[in-house]
């Protein structure tokens, strides 16, 4: 057997240039697949992280009706059982009670429609990326209460910096207008320009005062240690906190656009990978047919001296397996290294960033290494090599020894 393996290995390198070209083509194909898998995986991950880490979270508790009609009339006072459960559930990373409302941010010369989010600054750090996205100032300071944190795009638009005053206006619970004068304490940059231009954060108690509320909130945002536990935790929560006044939503339920985009992207990528592998398959087929065609006479001789057709097929399939496995090993190494490196450094989307924002991406795309899918891509490369060697292998033993020996070329 070892002699057959050696024979198969050496057969590959009879025509070094041809073997090297096929090897490079397979490596390039696999690297392309691994890279695109990394990009899609990174994009999906970033899209979810951006959405879940800013306004959304893994699980949200809301007053019944707020999801469909986000007005402050749809508010609730968080029941004690909810906080007690969240405090004891080890799967929960943190939670933040919020008041969310639409309003106007005004300066002396302009007004901008914004989403106002009232938060407890300490609690918010456990669920949101905003406290870590501060590029100027702070995510609130202990010294003053009348503070506001704005996105950098909004700060640029209104030409106001740290310490400058702005006025927030929104409709109160009773229908009157409520307003508050606030100073900018911090500026955040999430990389999502739409979010950064139209979202502001204030202290929850300040916003509640402004809106004529007491302990009422519009949502409790819950962050988990593991995003894959979202469904389980939300179901547990539904059982524990049963109230007709409260609704519990997962991020998938809140963000159907993202879920549909993920599903669509997976379906769109399938034919793309199919084309990659088909091109690879025809490369293997063409090369093996050429290589075996050149060896038809020799195959006839081998069968003449007693080599069984199944052994001949085995040698040819082994040749393809070895070449594919080598391509898979090199492609896996190069592709994984590329994805891990770009995942670390990020890909600057430059002029594409504005368009990428629409898809929940920032200015930098970070490909993400997906071990399972990457391994599957490598296995698929080997499988393609083996499957598409079968036809040339069977073709090789189809002739009788004399027919094969009499043909110098197939």
């Amino acid at each position, binding site marked *: 057997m070892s*002699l057959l393996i050696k024979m198969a290995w050496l057969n590959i390198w009879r025509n070094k240039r041809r073997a090297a070209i096929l090897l490079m083509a397979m490596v390039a194909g696999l690297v392309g697949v691994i890279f695109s898998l990394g990009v899609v995986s990174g994009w999906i991950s970033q899209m979810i992280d951006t959405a879940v880490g800013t306004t959304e979270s893994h699980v949200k508790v809301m007053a019944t009706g707020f999801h469909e009609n986000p007005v402050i009339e749809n508010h609730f006072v968080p029941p004690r059982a909810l906080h007690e459960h969240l405090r004891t559930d080890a799967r929960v990373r943190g939670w933040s009670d919020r008041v969310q409302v639409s309003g106007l941010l005004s300066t002396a010369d302009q007004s901008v429609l914004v989403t106002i989010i009232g938060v407890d600054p300490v609690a918010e750090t456990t669920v949101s990326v905003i406290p870590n996205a501060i590029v100027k100032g702070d995510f609130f300071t202990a010294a003053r209460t009348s503070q506001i944190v704005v996105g950098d795009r909004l700060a640029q638009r209104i030409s106001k910096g740290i310490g400058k005053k702005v006025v927030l206006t929104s409709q109160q619970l009773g229908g009157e207008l409520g307003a508050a004068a606030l100073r900018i304490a911090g500026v955040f940059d999430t990389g999502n320009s739409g979010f950064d231009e139209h979202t502001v954060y204030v202290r929850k108690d300040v916003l509640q005062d402004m809106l004529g509320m007491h302990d009422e909130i519009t949502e409790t945002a819950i962050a988990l240690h593991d995003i894959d536990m979202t469904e389980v935790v939300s179901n547990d929560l539904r059982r524990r906190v049963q109230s007709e006044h409260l609704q519990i939503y997962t991020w998938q339920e809140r963000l159907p656009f993202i879920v549909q985009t993920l599903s669509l992207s997976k379906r769109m990528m399938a034919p793309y990978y199919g084309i990659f592998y088909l091109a690879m398959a025809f490369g293997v087929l063409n090369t093996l047919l050429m290589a075996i065609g050149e060896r038809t006479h*020799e195959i006839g001789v081998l069968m*003449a001296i*007693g080599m*069984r057709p199944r052994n001949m097929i085995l040698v040819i399939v082994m040749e393809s397996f070895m070449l594919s496995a080598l391509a898979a090993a090199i492609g896996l190494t190069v592709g994984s290294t590329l994805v891990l490196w770009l995942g670390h450094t990020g890909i600057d989307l430059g002029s594409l960033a504005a368009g990428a924002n629409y898809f929940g991406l920032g200015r930098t795309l970070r490909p993400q290494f997906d071990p399972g899918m990457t391994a599957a891509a490598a296995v698929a490369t080997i499988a393609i090599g083996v499957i598409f060697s079968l036809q040339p292998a069977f073709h090789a033993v189809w002739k009788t020894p004399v027919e094969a020996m009499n043909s110098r070329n197939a």
Partner: protein
Amino acid sequence: MPLVSVKNVNKAYKTGATEVHALRGVDLDLETGEFTAIAGPSGSGKTTLLNIIGGLDTISDGSVVVADQDISGLKPRQLHELRLYQIGFVFQAYNLIPVLTACENVEFTMLLQGVPRDERRRRATEILDRVGLTDQMHRRPAAMSGGQQQRVAVARAIVTKPRIVLADEPTANLDSQTGTNLMAVMKQLNEEEAITFLFSTHDQMVMSHARRLIRLHDGRVESDTTA
């Protein structure tokens, strides 16, 4: 019972609408231990006859019995077994496996028979020593002369101890001295190991080594003489 018995064998090839008769009513018996040459001009049917005896080609009519088996009734798998265990082949163009060394080439048929690795290596080394190629064992065919390659081919053919070795113009690609040396090696193996040799040739030197000479002409046995 002769080792090889060819009875009234006809072989016709069709090339388009034309039928070419390569063999016409050939009768031939070959006993164990013979050292026989089939001579004749190109197109006389020498190679066809060897291919038929070797189970590589089929007959149109007649019967061929080799090592007690009527090969016209054998299935492809049985023909493989016959060639692997009962027949050794030596080809005009040596036809060694270019990617394997001389020793590995000789081991190859034993590998196909399932002989254990150590036993293969021992027997290959021994047989290469018999044909005077001990120092060439680890060379690949491309690094060897034509005579050396043909001696490796002979070693490959006899290492499995076949009942008969069929050699198709084994000296055709060799110079006269190398050809003479090769014939001496084959004759020695025939005499010492009692291996039956049947070879085709149109080389007078080869004919002079043969103990029995069968002449073919236009697919018919023209003469059959024993020295």
